[in-house]
């Protein structure tokens, strides 16, 4: 039994229960979980995120330490890898774009197979790349979709996302599994599946298990909890959507209200989201901001062409030529090496 993930799992379950129980009839903490905590979480997120990023920005970038992943810009007849070893800002932008949007470095994993002796075949080892892409894009789609609860009228790009996301008509399965209505969004399911994959990787691949901390499991469980409660509300324990939107619209228009008929499940869902937001700036999830600031990726590789300035450069003690010649003058002369000062001048 791994302490790291058990602790994280228990933490998420406890958090869920706190919100669920706290908003049941009698406990009456709707105000806390529906209004105070979400506002608090958003403020923590914004302030924490800004502080973290500004903290990074305060540290200097003394040297240009680009990881060059391709041919440098050299003589005109040698083809430069303009993206992998960019010498222009445009190249850097494309490199960063591909890195952030396509996870290009993760894609780099190629594998080789020796087929019967000496013939090589290449294949891509894509599982982590696919898992990561699926996870992040599903998450993004889910976030965009949820804007329907936070906007009135709902903007076109939200409805568009919904339409694309829900293009699979799953209600044909309704008779068999009694689920699939309202229309199924792929993103929710993909998010859950990808989070599960990322979790199972951490449990079953010993290398990854060794390096995993509680801080790696906690956000995964949190996201799984969010996805599960969301899916449950949508397809199984149907909730009063209009009431929920009244609540969420109250939040974003700064006229917070707690309408009648919002279920405890929703408050638990909202609480987990709040926890995620509040936890975000203090965790590895800050890779969202950090990926933009990685000095090995966001700088040009043309250090020999354009000088980079180190803001804290300071003079150091060096062994000058004069000191060197003083040390070795006799021997240099003997060997016929040119010297600046002849020995007799010394005295």
């Amino acid at each position: 039994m791994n302490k790291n993930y058990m602790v994280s799992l228990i933490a998420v379950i406890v958090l869920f229960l706190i919100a669920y129980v706290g908003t049941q009839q009698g406990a009456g903490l709707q105000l806390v979980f529906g209004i105070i905590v979400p506002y608090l979480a958003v403020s923590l997120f914004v302030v924490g995120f800004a502080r973290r990023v500004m903290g990074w920005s305060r540290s200097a970038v003394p040297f240009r330490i680009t990881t060059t992943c391709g041919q440098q810009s050299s003589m005109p007849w040698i083809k430069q890898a303009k993206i992998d070893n960019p010498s222009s800002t445009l190249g850097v932008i494309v490199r960063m774009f591909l890195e952030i949007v396509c996870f290009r470095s993760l894609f780099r994993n190629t594998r080789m197979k020796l087929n019967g002796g000496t013939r090589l075949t290449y294949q891509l080892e894509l599982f982590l790349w696919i898992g990561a892409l699926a996870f992040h894009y599903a998450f993004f789609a889910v976030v965009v979709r949820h804007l329907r609860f936070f906007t009135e009228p709902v903007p076109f790009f939200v409805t568009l996302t919904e339409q694309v996301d829900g293009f699979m008509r799953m209600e044909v399965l309704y008779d068999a599994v009694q689920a699939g209505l309202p229309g199924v969004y792929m993103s929710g399911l993909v998010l859950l599946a990808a989070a599960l994959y990322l979790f199972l990787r951490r449990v079953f691949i010993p290398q990854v298990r060794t390096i995993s901390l509680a801080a790696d499991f906690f956000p995964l469980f949190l996201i799984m909890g969010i996805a599960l409660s969301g899916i449950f509300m949508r397809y199984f324990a149907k909730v009063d959507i209009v009431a929920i939107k009244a609540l969420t619209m109250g939040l974003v228009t700064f006229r917070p209200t707690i309408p009648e008929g919002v279920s405890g499940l929703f408050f638990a869902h909202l609480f987990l989201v709040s926890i995620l937001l509040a936890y975000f700036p203090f965790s590895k999830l800050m890779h969202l901001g950090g990926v933009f600031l990685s000095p090995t990726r966001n700088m040009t590789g043309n250090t020999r062409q354009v000088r980079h300035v180190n803001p804290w450069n300071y003079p150091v003690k060096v062994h000058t030529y004069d000191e060197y010649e003083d040390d070795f003058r006799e021997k240099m002369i003997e060997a016929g090496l040119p010297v600046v000062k002849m020995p007799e001048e010394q005295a």
Partner: protein
Amino acid sequence: MKDKKKILAGLVIFFAAITFPFWFNMGKAAPAPELVLTAKAKAAKTCVMPTAFMKAEHMQLLDVWRHNVVRNGERAFVNAEGKLYTMSLSNTCLDCHSNKAEFCDRCHNYASVRPYCWDCHLDNPKGE
């Protein structure tokens, strides 16, 4: 450092994006929609199932109805109280809720839901 300015700009853009709901709705009240019940619906007092159930589960009920009518040729629906209804969107539902725009659409629009009922069904079968 100019680098710091760039980072600050990036941060501002990021926050502008994530606070989209706040400024998008700025100054708008956007209250939950009021549903209008027709006289007939008011008179009936209760729908085929209790209101709370209908609020959350009407889409599911309609899907069961569709299935039973189209696949099994059944049209009779008996609710918990033993009352008999004909399973028909056009003839039963729209009979009372003949005001689609003020009844169905208001909530659907508010929650950004696009039911495809109306791909086939006329929303005003009686042509009123």
